[in-house]
């Protein structure tokens, strides 16, 4: 029963990520600038990482469960790395950093492929214990999410607007979720375990609200209905 609830949490998280992915691709689609590609890649990798986790819970007695857990670990870290890279490059002038963001994204993709190969074709000396690596990866994720939260918060403070406060909040929720997972990994606290899952779902739901407000709830200069008969602003 407990496992069913956990699998359900992973499935819901993955669905939320893939719904968000559909909208996160829009900045790249509209501007054509590669630096915004990290946003859909990040949410795509995040969704895939939740699928790996869900599969590892579903097939818990099979041999390849360990492989799935390692894949989840790597995929989630790359997701946050892609998101952090997008925010880093978004504040830089595009004409000067085009080469750097191409190198960064290509490097991250290459590293992802190599780490997946390592999972399936392990080196002779073996991999360190999953628990230790998991803790280091959680720390890495927290650093990435802290960077993004500070970036988005600074952007909100520089131009205060009530509608820009939600995204720093959602990244903070994801960061606290990673922190709770780390605490759970260290002391096996049940509250930290439940908290990590709830904070993650809450964070993704805030993203969903922001997407809904942007794409379906915005009052445009040009209304959606009555294009032909509209009143232009005076």
């Amino acid at each position: 029963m407990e496992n069913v609830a956990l699998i359900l949490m992973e499935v819901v998280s993955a669905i939320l990520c893939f719904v968000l992915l559909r909208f996160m691709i829009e900045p790249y689609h509209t501007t054509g600038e590669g630096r915004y590609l990290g946003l859909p890649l990040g949410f795509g990798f995040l969704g895939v990482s939740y699928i790996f986790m869900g599969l590892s819970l579903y097939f818990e007695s099979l041999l390849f469960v360990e492989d799935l857990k390692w894949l989840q670990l790597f995929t989630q870290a790359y997701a946050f790395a892609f998101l952090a890279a997008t925010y880093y490059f978004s504040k830089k002038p595009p004409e000067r950093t085009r080469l750097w963001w191409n190198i960064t994204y290509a490097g991250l993709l290459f590293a992802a492929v190599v780490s997946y190969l390592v999972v399936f074709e392990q080196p002779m000396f073996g991999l360190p214990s999953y628990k230790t690596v998991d803790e280091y990866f959680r720390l890495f994720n927290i650093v990435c999410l802290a960077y993004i939260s500070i970036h988005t918060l600074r952007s909100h403070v520089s131009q205060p607007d009530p509608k820009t406060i939600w995204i720093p909040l959602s990244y903070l929720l994801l960061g606290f979720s990673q922190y709770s997972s780390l605490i759970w990994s260290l002391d096996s606290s049940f509250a930290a375990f439940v908290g990590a899952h709830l904070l993650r779902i809450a964070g993704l739901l805030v993203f969903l609200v922001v997407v809904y407000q942007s794409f379906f709830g915005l009052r445009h200069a040009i209304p959606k209905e009555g294009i032909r008969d509209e009143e232009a602003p005076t």
Partner: protein
Amino acid sequence: MRKLPRRDKLKIYGDLLYFLHTESKKEKVVLTHVQLKTNVPFDRLKHYIDELKELGLILDEPSLKLTDKGKQYLREYETVLDFMKRMGLIYE
């Protein structure tokens, strides 16, 4: 003096279409006025207007105004810019 950030073509198109939309009630849109508002040199402005006409986003009869396709483009552009602002992404 603070240097203004360089705008790419997409942003210039967006500014140009938005300005033409706000001026759509006027009988005649004066190009010099458009040039001042969008801050584009006159020769390049004429080039951009030709491109927008070729793309079917604006009409020049009897005066410059947005087509339905132009309005659709401006609406989508505005939505994505708003989304990027909410996401804390800088686009300039």
